[in-house]
């Protein structure tokens, strides 16, 4: 993840003048009808939900739909979130359940109506085309990994979560997360190198 894309999640902004409100506080405000509070929750956890959605669905459009639907469901059931400090894990569980429903019930994925990709890009058409090609290659490579490895590598390398946070979200130990990350990266590197002859994606 490039540093300029890092999303402050409140707890990771030690230099901020005012501490970001906790998830519990935002959830409390959202329960009382504060739309801005819920929007902060969306901004804070969109990437984690997207990572799980992408890991489960295999494509960005479905992942964006899953994230949208998961936030809608989360908002409807905020009272059911018994551990607000684990909102991300709860949200990701909703994403997984929705993805499971999508897969097992054979529901046709909808056309994404609100994903970030649907908003006009600020980049050039050539750059957009390159980006789309790169995404396709990454998604194909990710598709070769076990789901748990996909989730871990996306949560770590795209969302920037720590192993402890990922452990809570995926329901495993921190040590297992490290192993999954190591294996996922190794496999991805091999897959991308094989597909490309050389790997231009190395940092």
């Amino acid at each position, binding site marked *: *993840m*490039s540093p300029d*894309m890092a*999303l402050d999640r409140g707890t990771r902004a030690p230099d901020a003048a005012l501490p970001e409100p906790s998830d519990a506080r935002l959830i409390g405000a*959202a329960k009382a*009808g504060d*739309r801005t509070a*819920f*929007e902060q*929750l*969306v*901004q804070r956890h*969109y*990437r984690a939900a*997207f990572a799980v959605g*992408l890991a489960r669905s295999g494509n*960005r459009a479905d992942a*964006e739909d899953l*994230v*949208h639907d998961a*936030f*809608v469901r*989360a*908002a*409807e059931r*905020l009272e059911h979130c018994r551990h607000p400090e684990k909102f991300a894990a709860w949200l990701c569980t909703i994403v997984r359940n929705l993805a499971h429903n999508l897969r097992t019930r054979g529901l046709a994925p909808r056309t994404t109506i*609100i*994903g*970030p*990709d*649907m*908003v*006009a*890009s*600020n*980049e050039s058409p050539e750059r957009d085309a390159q*980006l789309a090609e*790169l*995404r396709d290659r*990454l*998604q194909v490579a990710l598709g070769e990994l076990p789901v748990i490895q996909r989730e871990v*590598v*996306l949560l*770590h*390398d*795209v969302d920037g979560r720590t*192993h402890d946070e990922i452990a809570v979200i995926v329901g495993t130990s921190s040590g297992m997360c*490290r192993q999954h*990350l*190591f294996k996922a*990266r*190794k496999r*991805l*590197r091999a897959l*991308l190198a094989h597909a490309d002859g050389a790997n231009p*994606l*190395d*940092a």
Partner: protein
Amino acid sequence: MHNDSDDLIDLSALDPLRDRASFEACAARVAGHAMDARDRSRAAARAEASGIVIALMSLARPTVLAAGILVAIALSAVVRSTTPPSTSTVSAADAMGLPRRLTDILHSTAAPSLTELEVALAAAASP
């Protein structure tokens, strides 16, 4: 053990926050849809709850009346069943209105005299 920064693969192409402005617009729309859905859901729940209350209230009066009748019947049965039985006994002769003297003669093993019979029958004939 390996280091997290080792073997790093750049997956930023998959980052939904790659374009921050687009993402913020998206987040606002997602949050708007979600909170709209929450408002609708809560309104529906309130409507459902008030419907139940109205239904209960419409049933309240006849239900309370029926419950009162049932309670009254049950209480009377309970009172009846707990009342101690009378210890006095009434003989069939008393119930038929036969005079005591005549029944005494009937119960006696000794043969009655004519006088006794005459007195007893006279008592029976008198109102």
